[in-house]
Structures are given as C-alpha cells and as structure tokens.
C-alpha cells in the first residue's frame, strides 16, 4: 500500500522569505502523480501544484515550486517570497496512475501547518 509522510507538523517563515516543506512517500508503482494542497483554516482545500512522476522537470507555479527526487521518493514544496495569505495547512498527496482516467483516490500525508510572521 502507498503511504505519504510529512515529518514537519509545524513550520514558520518570515514574510518575504523562503520556506521548504518536506514530504516522502512509499510506493512500488512507477506511474503516479504527486500533489500539494493548501487548506486555510475553516476553508476549502485547494490545489497548489502537481507533478507527474514520469516528468523529470520539477513543476513550478508562480512562487511555488517542487523538488521531486524520484529515486529518493521525496517531494518537497518550496514557497518563495512568503506572504501572509500563505498561512495554512499544507498536505502532500499521492495518486496512482494505474487507471487511465486518472480519477483515483488521493492518499494524503498528515499535513504541515505553516505560520507566516509579519
């Protein structure tokens, strides 16, 4: 069975600085997808960034980028120029690529609470 581990329950960063959230996963599959989701307090979970395992290039979305190390099964999220609005719980998630429609369930890590200090 696949597992996702986030070993940092809480992180803090000064506004405008850079922070990296860690995630490791375990799978025997070769085709899969990895995601970072953001969940602000009492608000809905939104997708931050996603990475296809077959792509070597790390995904980037504006101030958010990932460091995908397939052999090490590591998938960290880097947030540059942190803003107060980035404060939230961040979840790393895995989805198998075995189904052709790519609608399989997400397997989530435990989450990392990010605090942004002004």
């Amino acid at each position, binding site marked *: 069975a696949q597992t996702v581990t986030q070993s940092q329950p809480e992180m803090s960063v000064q506004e405008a600085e850079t922070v990296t959230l860690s995630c490791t996963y375990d799978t025997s599959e070769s085709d899969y997808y990895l995601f970072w989701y953001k969940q602000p307090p009492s608000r809905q*979970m939104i997708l931050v960034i996603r990475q296809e395992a077959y792509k070597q290039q790390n995904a980037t979305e504006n101030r958010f980028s990932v460091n995908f190390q397939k052999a090490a099964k590591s998938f960290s999220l880097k947030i540059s120029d942190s803003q107060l609005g980035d404060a939230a719980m961040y979840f790393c998630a895995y989805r198998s690529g075995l189904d052709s*429609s790519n609608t399989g369930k*997400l397997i989530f*890590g435990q989450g990392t609470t990010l605090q942004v200090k002004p």
Partner: protein
Amino acid sequence: EAGVAQSPRYKIIEKRQSVAFWCNPISGHATLYWYQQILGQGPKLLIQFQNNGVVDDSQLPKDRFSAERLKGVDSTLKIQPAKLEDSAVYLCASSSENQPQHFGDGTRLSIL
C-alpha cells in the same frame, strides 16, 4: 464555474443519533469522493463514485456509514448510529477525467 457545494457546514449531534450530509459536485464531473478528515490528520477516502456506481468503498465502515449518488449527480453520506470517533470534517470532492480533484468546504461534525 460553481464549486463543489456541501451542506450543512456544521452539525452537532449526540452519540447513537443519525446524521446525513449532502454534496453537489461541479457540473459535468463524473467522479465524486467522500473523505473523512479527523482533527490533525490528512483526509482519508471513505467512498468514491463514478457516475452512480461505487468504485471504491474499502475504507467505509459499512455497519454504520452509507452513501448514495442517485442519478449520478449529487450525493448523500449518512451515519447511523454515530460514535464519538466519527467527529471529523467530511469533505466532498469531484473531478472529471484527467483533471485534479476539487473540494467543497466540508461539513464539521461534532459528536457529544
């Protein structure tokens, strides 16, 4: 595009009572998911529908939980009878083929 709609936002019941949650997915999304998120943990899939058929309910406690998705659109998740351990946020998500999942605001359930 309207997002995933869930109701109610909050529910407080006593143990052994029953409760139901409703979800309306994004229009055109064939796949609908119910996740349970216990405080301090990541969401865990309870059940996944493809149109009105069940794809995965392996982690659904079937002795007390049930779900249906009539006509392949909106869905209802029911708990009967509720236990203290069912206190959680229940998240509904939907997706279309090859697209990421979109989540609703969730229903926060408290069991007294």
